[in-house]
């Protein structure tokens, strides 16, 4: 069952702190709350891939080397409060929510775009809009502009919304899940695909 605005409110003030939804900062709740969702804002840090420097994504290399290469192949971009990040048509960039989110263990959440931005051709995630119970941190946007014109994006703008679903209390919170890679992060992080165990195994098999 999806939570409505009153149920979200109730979970934000739950007497048991571990059952509370945390969304902070809530700059203007009147603007941000919808019937079954809360709007989230764009943060200030972005990761852009330097296409001219990369021939392909290397999945098999030594993880340290991949990590070093990722830093070489991606550009972190910070924008100031009144400075736009311009997303060009066809371009892909990672960003994160301005807000810090905490999802309790008996709720799951979904990050969705807002129709205002969808109408302009902005996608806020490529595939990963699902938020596990027990997640805390800033959520990552996988931004792409499928429109025809460059899109200046200002930090603090409400480009997305989060909605919550009830579930039974999980015994496998995201932060404690084996191999969880992005728990507690407050900044925009690149993919840590090379930490997935299957690549370790493939690397091992290739080495032997």
């Amino acid at each position: 069952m999806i939570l409505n605005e009153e149920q979200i409110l109730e979970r934000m003030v739950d007497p048991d702190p571990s059952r509370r939804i945390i969304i902070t900062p809530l700059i203007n709740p009147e603007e941000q709350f919808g019937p079954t969702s809360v709007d989230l804002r764009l943060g200030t840090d972005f990761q852009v891939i330097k296409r001219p420097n990369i021939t392909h994504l290397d999945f098999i290399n030594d993880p340290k080397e991949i990590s070093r290469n990722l830093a070489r192949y991606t550009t972190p971009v910070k924008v100031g409060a009144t400075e736009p990040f311009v997303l060009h048509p066809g371009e892909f960039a990672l960003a994160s929510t301005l807000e810090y989110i905490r999802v309790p263990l008996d709720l799951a959440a979904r990050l969705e775009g807002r129709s205002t931005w969808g109408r302009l051709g902005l996608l806020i995630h490529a595939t990963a809009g699902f938020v596990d119970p027990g997640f805390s941190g800033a959520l990552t946007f996988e931004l792409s502009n499928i429109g025809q014109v460059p899109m200046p994006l200002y930090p603090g703008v409400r480009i997305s919304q989060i909605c919550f679903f009830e579930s039974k209390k999980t015994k496998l919170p995201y932060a404690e899940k084996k191999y969880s890679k992005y728990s507690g992060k407050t900044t925009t992080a690149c993919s840590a695909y090379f930490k997935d165990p299957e690549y370790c195994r493939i690397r091992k098999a290739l080495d032997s």
Partner: protein
Amino acid sequence: MKNFALRKVFLILTEKIARLENLYNSKLADERIFGNDFITSCQRSLDKLKAEILQNKLILLESYSEKTLEDAKIQKVLSSLEKCITGFLELHSLLSYLPSNYVIPETGIFLNNVLKNHHNLCGIKSNILLSPDFLTRDTHKDLFELIFPCEIASNTLTLYLPIMESSDPLYWVILSKKIFAHTDKIRINPKLIADRLFEERNINLEDRALLEKLAYELTSDLFTVKLFGPAYYYLMLELGTFRSIAESKKRHNPTLAIREELIYNELKKVSMADELAQAHEWFAELSRLSEKLHSILGFEFKRDNLLPLFNELMIALDREVSEKLEKSALFNEKDYKKSLQAYDRLNNDVLISSSYIHDIDNIRNDYEKACKEPEESFNIYEHLNKFKEDPNTPQQIVNAGWMYKDNTTDKVFFDFLSNDYGPANLGLFPSYTTKLDNNLVKSIETLVIHKVLLNED
């Protein structure tokens, strides 16, 4: 306290070395850029330091017990500590030859932008010049002299705020105290003050020059502690303990002990020293523990004959600095209280860019009461709007961060020592502060946006 003082100084050192190692692993160990010789020297220095720390692991663990360590063990740790300090400074000087972008990346520039947009900080409306070059001013001496015709104080306020994820941890954010020196509105000339004060006294030229030099540095300290509160105290102890030794000697700057005393007294005057008592005590204990440390850290004001003049100078500088600063810019008790609230949030790993205006329990009570009333009178916005938050200031955020760091690192160090960390894993040690630092950076960044969206700058 003896045990704690010893451990504390090792803890600071370990974190510094671990951060250097992370920097080394993520950036410097690239033969294509830095060449073989440089990499080998760095690696050798790091290995020596790590081995020295690990050799003392058992004694350090023992220091957590109630019993005071035996003298022989204390001496062993101290001699190791002295070796570490020398090694650390060697490594530091090796790294100082690097182009600044390898040591101080874009965080400095980012924070510069933050500060430019955050006009209320320090009560300064003009642009705040904040340059990573402050850290490498020896290698950019000409440029510095061009920008700052006045003498440059050495104790820039340096915050340890990494911007990236844990793979790239060493980022120095410089909130340079030079912001005061080149801002017309609050320009102050410590040399003139010293001259004015001593012109009719019979002081020899050497002593006079010494006091003038001290005046620059201490003016800088006074500005900073008045603007940033207790955070500056923590910061100075942690970063100053190892970084300033070489500089202090070279530049005849005031010793760490003089600074410590000045800042501690300043905070006591405004009732903000309670939290710092333990830090004050370990620092004093450290000075009692070892003569050699005592002399390299310079715990005393050596020239007793100058003490009365020094005290007079301090009073004059304090008066001048207080006059130049707007009251609204001073870090006050209200800021301190908000920092404590933010510190509570940090204990739960939550972002501290803002604080709730209404108490959560009150929001719940009001809501529950309203639910019992007729539906027509219920207005959901009335309740939702109570979640509106107030942005904190960068000073409040930074203070909360230092309180948190000071209160938690000892336990983290214990866990670190207790687990079977080999030298290869030393880099894991600072991951907890990296997380904290990321939270602080994100908080500062977020509060700026928050303020813009409230349209109240």
